């Protein structure tokens, strides 16, 4: 049964996690013009920071979530200050930035692997399963759905109503013009990294709680995250939201179809890849992107 209520629940949860990752990825992509491959490791980093709080220190996972948001946001800022800002001031091209992002990603992931080992780990929290229209949903999943929706509204408010948010949009639309208008680009970039990184950290905790912790946690969902960003149109906040749920549904329906056809469900990541290739062939600017991007 490829389209059951269980699939809808799973797709919404997957989509909610992808949204949180894709928003930061697409913001950085738009403003700094490069594909940030270390974004995956921000997701993993957040998940393990919450692990320290939740398991090593024995506190509630909610505290872990908050700490993960803060620390991952700060890690985003640190990498920008130590590496990407220097590359910008040297006038390095986007290719150098992508290679540097790979370097940072390898570094972060391998330090995590060294610290916690390659084995699977789990958070400690109580969870209840509820029946919902013939499917089942956990308390955690309800929490993920509600909090990511709240975060989306919060970000919408930030982008539309606050000075910082407006400045972010101005910088991503036209950096030179924004600077000429007296916007402190470097200062706004700090916010982009902090929010983008922080959201990735939250996504990592959600993913880790919904599945398990492993040093490849973020890397496993980097490809769907890029597929979301490109399908949504690079830099498009609303495009990313729609695309994240499209990906969530495609993956979960796709997996159901794969098992119907008795093909290994290990091909799950290939679904994102097929979507990515189709978008590049049919509409490289994405759902809500502009033509100049390609």
């Amino acid at each position: 049964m490829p389209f059951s209520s269980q699939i809808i629940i799973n797709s919404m949860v997957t989509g909610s996690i992808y949204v949180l990752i894709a928003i930061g990825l697409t913001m950085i992509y738009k403003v700094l013009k490069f594909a940030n491959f270390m974004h995956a490791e921000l997701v993993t980093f957040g998940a393990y920071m919450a692990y320290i709080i939740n398991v090593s220190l024995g506190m509630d996972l909610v505290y872990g979530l908050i700490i993960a948001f803060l620390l991952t946001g700060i890690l985003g800022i640190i990498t920008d200050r130590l590496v990407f800002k220097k590359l910008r001031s040297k006038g390095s091209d986007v290719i150098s930035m992508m290679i540097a992002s790979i370097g940072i990603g390898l570094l972060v992931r391998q330090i995590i692997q060294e610290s916690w080992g390659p084995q699977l780990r789990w958070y400690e929290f109580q969870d209840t399963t509820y029946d919902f229209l013939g499917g089942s949903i956990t308390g955690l999943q309800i929490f993920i759905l509600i909090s990511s929706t709240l975060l989306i509204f919060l970000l919408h408010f930030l982008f539309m109503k606050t000075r910082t948010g407006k400045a972010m949009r101005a910088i991503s639309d036209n950096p030179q013009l924004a600077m000429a208008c007296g916007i402190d680009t470097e200062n706004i970039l700090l916010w982009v990294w902090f929010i983008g990184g922080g959201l990735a950290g939250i996504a990592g905790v959600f993913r880790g709680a919904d599945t398990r912790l492993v040093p490849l946690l973020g890397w496993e969902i980097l490809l769907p995250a890029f597929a979301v960003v490109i399908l949504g149109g690079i830099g498009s906040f609303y495009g990313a939201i729609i695309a994240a749920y499209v990906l969530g549904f495609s993956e979960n329906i796709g997996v159901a179809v794969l098992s119907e056809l008795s093909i290994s469900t290990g091909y799950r990541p290939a679904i994102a890849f097929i979507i990515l290739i189709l978008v590049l062939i049919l509409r490289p600017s994405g759902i809500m992107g502009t033509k100049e991007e390609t």
Partner: protein
Amino acid sequence: MFQDYILDTLIYIGIYGILAISLNLEAGYTRLMNFGKVAFFAIGAYASALLSIAGAPFLAGLVVGILLSAMFGFLVALPALRLRADYLAIVTLSFGEILRLFFLNEQWLTNGPMGLRGIPQPLFSVLDNNYLVFYTVMVFVFLIICYAFSEKIMNSPFGITLKAIRDDEDAVFAFGEDTFRFKVKVFIIGSAMAGISGALFAHYIAFISPDMFFPSLTFSVWTMMVIGGSANNLGVIAGAFLIQFLERGTRFIKDFADLGIEPSNLRIIIIGILLILFILYKPEGIIKERKRIL
């Protein structure tokens, strides 16, 4: 024993040297971001290994490996090369991961995670005592062929056009050159060369499994190119030498001192740091590109 160790090291330097030259053609000279180099290496390895196990001679396996790698290079390049540089990076990286899933899941063909054992080694029965010497010579013959070929095409009008595309694609396009065709061609050549390297690797170690083809291999080849010197073939071979030295060094230290860190983690951490430092402070690498003045 010591002699064997040296020869083994040389064989790996040769195999990675070929891979680094092939990446250099695409990324160093033409600025094509191939983040999935490992895929074409793996195609060469699996194709050649499977044919040899089925009874085909070594050279037949090698040729089919090269052709298949080239064909997939063409197919992957097609949707991505017309678009922005960063799309190619995302598409190739994803392709490598999907291919690894294919090798992992299609047990009937690849024996899945257990890998392929007993890959025949060419002329093994004839040479048994001097086998390592023979293999070293063979790998270096291929390395020299690839080096000479790469130097030749880069000094030909074709290669000069590629470098011009790297430096200013719009200008080359304005002169009426079909830049897309040039990029596709060099990508096919690079993929074919990676196929050679993969076949040599498979027949040397006589056992391959999907976990040998992680993206970290791609990035270790990138590191060879970046630290050795992009767009300099001798430079990238020097880079292959240094990274191989580093890899052996980290394993070697383990026998003498307790660093309190897993050597495989340490190696990737060092690779990450090297990538960041070279991109920041010495982007031209150890041996600079020789700029020809016409």
